[in-house]
């Protein structure tokens, strides 16, 4: 301690170099300097004569200054003053201990602690993949993120949805009672296969779209990124399970209508995440909730029923994210309602050029709804499908009211919604 008094300086940190080789000592000096403030002094003790020259050289090249060199006999001590251009790092957290739920679980909802829990409103692109909360060295490159504000991607329930998504994962190979599939009358099996073909086709869009936006999200907003990753996995499973059902029971994949592809392509080409989230998660997947409920209700076999029941649970999370996300953005900027109306109108204009119907799917839903292909069954099925359209419209409007749209706007957009459902 007497050494410091000698020069009237109190060091902010100390590096103990006794018995160490020069290379490792220089590294320790760099890291210690990074952690002290500009103008602060670092004490290095215990080096030999060789280190003297190397410390001088290091300081010259790294914006520091040797302010004193004290010869304590065998060991020497140096005091280095950190200059304005020396390596500067912020201080990381230490001493964080996340709470446990039920004495054991660490839940994503509980991880908002310290620096890691500090979700910024606007995130610079130059943090790249630095985990939120870690200390970034200055001078990092910018990343091509384009969704750089919290309002762009956040949803209030995002951490809870992520936890739900993980606990509700299932395996399309193991968790479906494939052994309970019995032969069905041919028209009914054809109807199921046609519907499965259509569902699988739509699931591709549901996978590709979040996969496209994920790398655009600034990694500071990791919770939406993690949640989108679960959506992507869910949709992969949906493609798998619907395709498997079409191939499982003596039928096969059936027809795809051009209208479906026009509809999905117009969704995929939407480059604005806010509009895309509204069109895909709120309107498209929202409408699919009703479609899946219809299929489950009229399913001719327990396997088909179980498949759509499980898929519907997954879709519920996707819709919940979309509603919360769009609602959050509208709260942030209410004028963006206009963009939603415009996006629905643009898409509707594209689809005007199509036939607007998907005859194979329409017939399949009718047969499913009526329980078979006799005239009486078709009549009953036709009524069920009309009811389905009404309830789809009704629930679409309710979801838009939840998002924060007014009733006339919601009614208008619902009318414009694609006849493809998604």
């Amino acid at each position, binding site marked *: 301690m007497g050494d410091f008094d000698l020069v009237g300086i109190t060091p902010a940190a100390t590096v103990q170099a006794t018995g160490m*080789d*020069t*290379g*490792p000592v*220089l*590294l320790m000096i*760099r890291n210690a300097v990074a952690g002290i403030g500009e103008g602060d002094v670092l004490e290095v003790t215990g080096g030999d*004569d*060789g280190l003297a*020259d*190397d410390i*001088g*050289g*290091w300081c*010259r*090249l*790294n*914006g520091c200054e040797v302010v004193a060199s004290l010869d304590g006999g065998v060991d020497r001590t140096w005091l280095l003053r950190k*200059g*304005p*251009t*020396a390596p500067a790092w912020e201080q990381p957290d230490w001493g964080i201990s996340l709470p446990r739920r039920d004495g054991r679980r660490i839940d994503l909802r509980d991880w908002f602690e310290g620096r890691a829990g500090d979700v910024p409103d606007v995130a610079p692109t*130059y943090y790249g993949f630095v985990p939120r909360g870690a200390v970034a060295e*200055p*001078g990092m*490159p910018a990343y091509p993120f384009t969704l750089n504000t919290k309002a762009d991607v956040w949803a209030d329930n995002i951490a809870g949805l992520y936890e739900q998504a993980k606990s509700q994962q299932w395996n399309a190979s193991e968790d479906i009672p494939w052994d309970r599939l019995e032969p069905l009358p041919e028209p009914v099996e054809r109807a199921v296969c046609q519907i499965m073909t259509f569902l699988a086709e739509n699931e591709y869009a549901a996978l590709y779209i979040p996969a496209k936006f994920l790398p655009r999200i600034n990694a500071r907003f990791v919770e939406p990124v993690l949640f989108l990753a679960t959506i992507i996995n869910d949709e992969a499973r949906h493609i798998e399970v619907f395709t498997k059902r079409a191939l499982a029971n003596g039928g096969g994949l059936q027809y795809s209508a051009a209208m479906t592809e026009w509809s999905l392509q117009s969704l995929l080409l939407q480059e604005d995440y806010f509009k895309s989230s509204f069109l895909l998660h709120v309107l498209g997947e929202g409408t699919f909730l009703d479609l899946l409920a219809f299929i489950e209700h009229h399913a001719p076999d327990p396997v088909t029923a179980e498949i759509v029941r499980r898929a519907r649970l997954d879709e519920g999370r996707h819709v919940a994210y979309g509603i919360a996300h769009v609602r959050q953005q509208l709260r942030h900027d209410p004028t963006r309602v206009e963009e939603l109306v415009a996006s629905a109108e643009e898409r509707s204009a594209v689809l005007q050029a199509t036939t607007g119907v998907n005859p194979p799917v329409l017939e399949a839903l009718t047969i499913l709804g009526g329980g078979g292909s006799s005239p009486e069954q078709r009549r009953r099925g036709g009524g069920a499908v009309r009811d389905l359209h009404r309830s789809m419209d009704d629930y679409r409007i309710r979801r838009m009211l939840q998002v924060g749209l007014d009733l006339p706007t919601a009614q208008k957009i619902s009318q414009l919604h694609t006849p493809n459902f998604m």
Partner: protein
Amino acid sequence: MTTDRLLVIGAVAYDPKVVPIWESMRDYFRDAGVPIDYVLFSNYEAQVDALFARSIDLAWNTNVAYVKSEQRSGGMCQVLGMRNTDVGFTTRIVGRGERLGGLGELKGKRLALGSADSAQAAILPLQWLRQAGLEPGGDVELLRFDLDVGKHGDTGTSELEVLRALHEGYADYGAVGDPTWIRELEAGHVNSSLVKSLWTSPPYCHCNFTALPDFDPAWAARWSNALLAMSYNDPKWRRLMDLEGLTAWVPGRKAGYEELTFALSLT
């Protein structure tokens, strides 16, 4: 003199990173209101010729290229700026064994040197050997790594060869500049329990921006002031400064080249 054209700066392309450095320099000086363009040369001799042919206004010169320019201009060149790391530059004699009291102790030993046109790794060490009364090649066996001649040691590859020779034991001592030495030490590339810095030269100056004696002083001052204003704490320019190996630009100085001037006058 007119400033309605770009100020043209010459630099030697000793590494692919020279292009991003100078693209960034061009951006910087455009923002600073003293727009520049740059011309890349494959060697410093051609760059100095271009300076005297007035096809460039400034040359980003090594100390060797600067001293040769001074010889041609009768010592009247202007120095418009340099890196903070160009001041206080030293050569290290590194090797196994005890610290050296002086270079006279190299008598009868094998000394590894870098490129023949590198001030830090060849020209100055040879000069100091002579000053210590030793005849290079006679009293001291020389192991020379003449790589990238024309680049004046900028590539650093010959200095890495010097360090390798020491690690592998086919030289007793070697001469390297302190930036290479410190960088390799810190990166853990030097076995520092085996190979140590045993002697440090007096400090000297390294690179600078050289202009001819009659270059417009007002234009020179505007450009220099813009250069000195570049801040390491501005993330926009930090990468450029990291690549170029400095944390601040400092005013040009003509002191610090005396020993090199003397050494080059002998050849």
